[in-house]
């Protein structure tokens, strides 16, 4: 980032009096020797003035008593339960309060994902079994058996064809005739 760019980012804060003495001095010195940044400063001052005029333009005084009566009316009025409920929900789930939920969800997901690592014997829905069979993956009597051993990190995939499947396959081959 060039000196001008970094200074331009600080001009607004400098005008607001929010920079440290060292930073303020640095911006002041730069502005004294840079016509382009001085122009940015002038524009910012014009903008601040225009904003102030604009935002205070309709600053009509509001009378206190009618205002207070309106507040009192709300205090004394019993609100319907659904309005109360919605208001509480809005407060509870408004953006700043929801900030905690993002790390909480990430932590929960990580915990669920790592539960198998830290508690290898624990399993939802019954005892752990490292042997699984998948039936007929191609509907022609062929099967796949999968053997996984956690301790030795060994996985064996066993492809086989049972007798029934073999007969069916042979029949199919007879019916379909020679392949060209």
């Amino acid at each position, binding site marked *: 980032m060039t000196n001008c760019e970094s200074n331009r980012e600080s001009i607004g804060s400098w005008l607001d009096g929010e920079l440290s003495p060292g930073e303020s001095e640095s911006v002041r010195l730069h502005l004294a020797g840079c016509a382009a940044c001085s122009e940015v400063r002038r524009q910012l001052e014009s903008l601040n003035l225009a904003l102030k005029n604009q935002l205070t333009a309709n600053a009509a005084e509001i009378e206190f008593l009618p205002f*207070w009566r309106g507040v009192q009316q709300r205090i004394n009025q019993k609100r319907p339960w659904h309005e109360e409920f919605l208001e509480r929900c809005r407060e509870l789930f408004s953006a700043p309060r929801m900030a905690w939920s993002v790390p909480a969800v990430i932590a929960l997901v990580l915990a669920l994902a790592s539960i198998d690592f830290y508690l290898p014997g624990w399993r939802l829905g019954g005892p752990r079994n490292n042997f699984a069979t998948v039936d007929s993956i191609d509907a022609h009597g062929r099967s796949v058996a999968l053997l996984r051993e956690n301790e030795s990190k060994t996985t064996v995939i066993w492809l086989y064809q049972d007798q029934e499947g073999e007969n069916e396959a042979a029949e199919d081959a007879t019916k379909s005739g020679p392949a060209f």
Partner: protein
Amino acid sequence: MELSDWELVKQCQAGETSAFQELVSRYHQKVFMVSLGLLRNREDALDVAQETFFRAYRKINSFQGDSSFYTWIYRIAVNISIDAQRRQKRNPLEFRESMDGVLESQNEVAKDPFTDAHDRELREHLTQAINELTPEHKAVIVLRTLEGMSYKDIGQILGCSEGTVMSRLHYARKKLQDKLSVFL
């Protein structure tokens, strides 16, 4: 001798409604102005300001003085205003009328026709540019410009750091400057 805000809050917490009335009288105009700056509509701003004090009244017992009362009340007002901005899809025609009223009243004090035309155009473009800001950017601009609040106070009101306030102000001003460069 005038009681401090905190003393009035403690009286409120003890059940003194008159103490709350005094707090409302101190801050109703400022809360209304901030809401008006954010919503740009008088009726909506009045509604938000009254709702702000109603909610403050209901929660006054939970106020422990960790921040100043005005920071607390502004936080409620800004949250309701931002919420209202997001929920309401204001009718453009209605909005136009409300802003025309403001512009007409401003024209009454203008003297030089050239300055008058220039200022009128600037105000129109500025209104449009302000309304195109996100609620968060608009909030920092309004709190800083209207109230001259420190970045620390703005951060407390909006629930963010001073660095975030600085960054939001920078980008909000840059957006406005880009859109209004020919008028500034």
